[in-house]
């Protein structure tokens, strides 16, 4: 297996140094002593008696000693027989536009039996921070055809908007539906998909492949697969590889790239495993203290920069252990991403699809991407009012559980009717149902009109005049027309 990094050495005539024998091997870590001139963070190739070449990087280096983190597992290595080669460069992968339509391992090796693509360039997988002054604030709405997203949690091109799910909930179906239906309100520009599988089951990866194939997007998709059965350490590499390609496509090829990474929880666990093997002081639930910075180094590789035509949008998926949103992975993710779409088991149990738990869901970039000049003038207030009213439904349902529904006031009963309509008509939709933005917003007003007009103070009188149609009046209007 000739390694990409090796080719780069030949081209750049950089010194490489080889050592035989490791001082110690501990989990994914290999200690080598007697080394000279090793750089922090540089790539290492390690071969054992089995002849298999593994890659890693230097995570700590002293005057004559280096600690190496090995990506593809240390099993089969024997300390005395391990040959360690320092490549003299940071971890890089070859990137090229022709990687679209192809399938790679988490570290970027072809898995589809086809030859290695011809590199347009070698890129450092860690990337570099985007200068905040170079960022262009994202404002173009991506219509997904899913009402609750388009009206209340809009996806914006250049946004990082994760799906927080629970095991067994239909996050894959939802992500696939978003991929199938997503389009801009106007214009049709070249787009690409980077799909990164992180420790998921084979059938989940296959589901995505098939769904991309059916929608005809497969030849515009690069897949990086680290499945449940693959080395967990390579999971650390996979998002880096995928995002490095995404940056190349977006900022060198002017493409609009949608990155789907699933499941970030598996990624976090791999990081935790590595941290504990390095003997680090853990913070919450055994996760390393730098989990936030590490996750941010991936999520922040999203966005639009001035002077380049492309963009990167991320929809990471993560399964919350125990459905617990306060678990470190969803918690820190929520602190970094620009909102979150949260799936709920209760709605799922009531056969509502998509079972999106509206109250904890949020799109932070929505405030600047909707309304007059972007979508429709009534959009922001409508969304706000739906949120406020639906939150009240929750309170009234709890009250009804105490005093009984009969004891509720008239207004409260209408809230319950609104809640039911909201969940059954607005939230619920078909897996192939692609609603236009107009349809979605009008539907929003229709369910809102179940409530007394005086309750709707989050919207202005003018908007109410234009859109509020209580059921009876609506029926009256239809009769008049007929």
């Amino acid at each position, binding site marked *: 297996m000739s390694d990409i990094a090796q080719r780069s050495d030949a081209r750049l005539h950089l010194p490489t140094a080889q050592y035989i024998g490791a001082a110690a091997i501990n989990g994914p870590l290999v200690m080598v002593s007697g080394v000279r001139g090793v750089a922090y963070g540089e790539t290492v190739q390690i071969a054992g008696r089995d002849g298999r070449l593994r890659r890693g990087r230097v*995570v700590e*280096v002293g005057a004559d000693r280096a600690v190496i983190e090995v990506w593809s597992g240390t099993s089969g290595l024997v300390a005395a027989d391990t040959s360690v080669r320092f490549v003299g460069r940071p971890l890089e992968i070859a990137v090229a536009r022709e990687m679209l339509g192809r399938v790679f391992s988490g570290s970027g090796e072809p898995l589809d039996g086809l030859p290695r693509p011809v590199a347009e360039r070698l890129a450092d997988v*860690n990337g570099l*921070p985007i*200068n*905040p*002054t170079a960022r262009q604030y994202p404002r173009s709405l991506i219509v997904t055809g899913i009402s609750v997203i388009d009206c209340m949690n809009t996806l914006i091109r250049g946004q990082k908007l994760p799906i927080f799910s629970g095991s067994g909930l239909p996050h894959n179906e939802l992500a696939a539906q978003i991929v199938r239906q997503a389009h801009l309100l106007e214009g049709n520009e070249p787009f690409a998909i980077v799909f990164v599988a992180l420790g998921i089951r084979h059938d989940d990866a296959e589901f995505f492949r098939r769904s991309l194939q059916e929608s005809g997007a497969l030849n515009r998709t690069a897949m990086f697969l680290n499945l449940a059965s693959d080395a967990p350490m390579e999971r650390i590499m996979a998002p880096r590889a995928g995002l490095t390609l995404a940056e190349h496509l977006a900022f060198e090829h002017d493409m609009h790239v949608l990155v789907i990474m699933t499941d970030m929880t598996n990624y976090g666990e791999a990081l935790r495993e590595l941290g504990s093997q390095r003997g680090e002081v853990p*913070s919450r639930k055994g996760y390393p203290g730098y989990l936030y910075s590490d996750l941010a180094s991936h999520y922040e590789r999203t966005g639009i920069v001035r002077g380049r035509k492309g963009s990167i949008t991320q929809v990471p998926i993560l399964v919350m252990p125990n459905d617990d949103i306060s678990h470190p992975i969803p918690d820190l993710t929520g602190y970094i991403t620009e909102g979150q779409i949260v799936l709920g088991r209760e709605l799922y149990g009531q056969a509502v699809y998509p079972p999106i738990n509206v*109250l904890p869901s949020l799109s932070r970039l929505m405030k600047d991407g909707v309304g007059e000049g972007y979508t429709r003038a009534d959009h922001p207030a409508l969304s*706000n009012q739906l949120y406020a009213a639906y939150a009240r439904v929750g309170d009234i349902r709890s009250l009804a559980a105490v005093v009984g529904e009969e004891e509720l006031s008239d207004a409260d009963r209408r809230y319950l009717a609104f809640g039911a309509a909201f969940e059954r008509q607005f939230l619920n939709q078909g897996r192939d149902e692609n609603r236009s933005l107009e349809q979605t917003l009008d539907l929003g007003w229709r369910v809102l009109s179940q409530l007394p007009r005086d309750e709707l103070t989050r919207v202005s009188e003018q908007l109410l005049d234009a859109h509020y149609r209580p059921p009876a009046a609506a029926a009256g209007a239809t009769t008049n027309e007929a």
Partner: protein
Amino acid sequence: MERAGDIIWINGPVMRARMATGLQMLEQVEVGEQHLVGEVIALQGDIATLQVYEETIGLRPGAPVYGLGMPLGVELGPGLMGGIYDGIQRPLEAIEARSGIYISGGIAAPALDRERRWPLEPALTVGQTLHGGETLGAIVETPLVTLRLPVPPDVDGEVTWAAPAGDYRVTDTVARVRTASGERELNLMQRWPVRQPRPSAGRLPPVTPLITGQRVIDTLFPIARGGTAAVPGGFGAGKTVLQQALARWCDADIIIYVGCGERGNEMADVLREFPHLSDPKTGRPLIERTILIANTSNMPVAAREASIYTGITLAEYYRDMGLHVALMADSTSRWAEALREISGRLEEMPAEEGFPAYLPSRLASFYERAGRVSTLSGQEGSVTLIGAVSPPSGDFSEPVTQHTQRFVRVFWALDKALASARHFPAVNWVDSYSGYVEEISPWWAEHVSDAWAAHRARIVDILQGEGRLQEIVRLVGPDTLPDAQRYLLFVARLIKDAFLQQSALDAVDAYSTPPKQAAMLALLANIYDRGLAIIARGAPVGRLQDEVTLWPQVRRLGSTVANQDTTAIAALQEQLYAQLAAIEEDYRHERHSATI
């Protein structure tokens, strides 16, 4: 620059060097051929431990270390306003010009432009004695900001030469002073070590509110100029929007906004908006009084640790000119985590949740740099500190929130449930508090309304009463409550909808002047008292709720009545009184008409 030693060990941003010559504790260093910026954080024997503020990938043992002979510092002088800097004050715009869309390491760019000339209006005359902190001269840096440049605090002597009015570069000598230790040349800039507070002549009591235009803050939980506040809240609770709203509307002279370990797009948002938003007082673009320090979550973690010190040092500099400065740090938790990360790499003994034992003392010394002071030159200046806190899983019992709470006097607790219901700002009225209410009450009485304190107390009572009653309601429903209490619940909901909620995104509602706040407050307090009196006469609460048709208008006051239109609020109050009076009419002779 002298080679002080060689690197012998590297672990991310932390490294050790064997010293050839002595380095001092906290001395600024440069490492490697790229001259990466760092700082000495520990000394033991001939080994110095360094933290480096830039990406260290590619650095090798044996790399040279250069000592700069002074602690990590910032450049102070004209030309910072409207700029955006990283955590160690490197100008991000200049970096973009050199290295493109990505930040690469080893780019040295001075914070202050060395070529630009500034029109100086000198304040010195030859022969006068000059003390530290006194004014060298004035420069109009932007239409919003006039700098009265303070001479460095350690200057003391007689002016032997002073430059005439004219245009000068920051490094040009503009005065000479004969001091005990020899002649000293002064120019328009000075360096100051970020970890060392700048001196003042003494503290003054915090008696003036920092008006933010946010009703729940100014009226319920006010902050004083020179005060300290924490904004804790889980993700999405509204910390950033609130901090940005304060940066926009608060009546400070200078805003320092520190984006510490947060999102790149949020900084881009400020950069995009502030040039187009105008200062409510002067109508000038807000960017003219704002400095941004951006060390986003994906930028080197050690520079994140430095960023809040860079911010506070800039703030003190403007304070020393007699200006009122407000600093927002979003988020101090990310700063604490940077501290934890570096501490972990040093293999220090952790205290709570992996944080080093010195976390509380670091937090204390940061917040202690806030204050309203008498400057060395006898003027009044202030630094107000507002720090966001991002507790893991929104749980306020974690170490950063807990320790911060000990060192701040205002606590704006953001509530996840309120944010989910889109009640913004999601400031929880039960858990939040302000320690400045007493001290600033006279200001409201003098400048806005005599009744402010009384009305405020009324509203606080209602909200607290509501909290107690809700517990009963949760158990048995509202119907068992007497009418007066149900009316209290009704008015409490009105207060939340009309007064406490305030959309930062609404053109009218985003900012409420003190008179508008006071008028709304008065209306709510008066309506409560009036209604209560009618209920006491026997009117059922249902009639007040149903027959008064103006409640929706009250709920929409924030976004329908412009700031200059406070009479409209008084007018609405009169109409409400009239509708209430119509109900009251039926109960005027309650006792006699019982038979009707």
